[in-house]
């Protein structure tokens, strides 16, 4: 199949998956709002949890794949890995924005503050900065080989930064006793809430797959146009 024809196939396939995923997302909305018990202590705002956490997981998945494919690209020099990494990064930003908007909207009624430097929120913020840096660098480089190589280096280094951010926040919190904050996602989650969370997570992953596929098709079409398609 020629590059242009493959690109169209990816876009078509990706669009189909995305449509199904968006419909499923609507279903998740109904499930979370209509068929999942209300948390008496936290009220309706607790239901933001069913969107925020899957979005965060998807963003983490997206970024891990950016890092992984970046490393593989540096090793194997296969342009497909670079295209996939770039696609995953852009889709990851979308989920990152969801995560960073729903996070504070959830935190305010539950914890009384728009932001807190706890491990989860801090990490999500850093993931976002890493994604944005990766995409900004790509946008600023016009030579395809340079763009692929440089962003791959950033991708790998970024992935390795994540455990250090985690460690820093952990050290900070263990050495600085903070006032005990009630974590909304209580360790023992009632089965119906867990069910809704997992279904939502699955739908978000499906949405990630659909969007990345479309984005990959777009990247393929753009590479084709640049005339820089490398054989695998």
């Amino acid at each position, binding site marked *: 199949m020629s590059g*242009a024809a493959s*690109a*169209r196939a990816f*876009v078509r396939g*990706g*669009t189909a998956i*995305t449509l199904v995923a*968006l419909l499923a*997302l609507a279903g998740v*909305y109904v499930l979370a*709002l209509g068929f999942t018990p*209300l*948390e*008496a*202590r*936290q*009220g*309706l*705002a607790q*239901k*933001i949890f069913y*969107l*925020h956490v899957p*979005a965060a997981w998807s963003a983490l998945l997206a970024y891990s794949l950016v890092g992984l494919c970046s490393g593989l690209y540096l090793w194997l020099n296969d342009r497909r890995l670079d295209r996939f990494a770039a696609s995953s990064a852009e*889709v990851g930003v*979308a989920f990152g*924005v*969801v995560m960073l*908007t*729903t996070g504070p*909207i*959830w935190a*305010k*009624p539950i914890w009384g503050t728009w932001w807190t430097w706890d491990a989860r929120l801090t990490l999500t913020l850093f993931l976002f900065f890493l994604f944005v840096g990766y995409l900004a660098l790509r946008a600023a480089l016009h030579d395809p080989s340079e763009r692929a190589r440089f962003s791959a280096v950033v991708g790998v280094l970024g992935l390795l930064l994540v455990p250090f951010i985690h460690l820093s926040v952990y050290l900070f919190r263990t050495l600085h006793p903070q006032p005990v904050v009630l974590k909304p996602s209580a360790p023992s989650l009632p089965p119906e809430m867990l069910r809704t969370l997992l279904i939502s997570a699955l739908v978000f992953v499906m*949405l990630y797959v*659909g*969007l990345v596929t*479309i*984005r990959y*098709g*777009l990247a393929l*079409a*753009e590479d084709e*146009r*640049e005339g820089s398609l490398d054989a695998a």
Partner: protein
Amino acid sequence: MPPDNGGYMVAAYVVTALILVGYALGLWRRARKATREGSTRVSP
């Protein structure tokens, strides 16, 4: 008596839908434009 914070929930659910549907739509349009049949010109 659960706290009255439904407004936050609505805001979050609406914002999420807007971001995801908006991004999907924008992405689809960009992809369609790039893969139009017979389109081999370098994009402007």
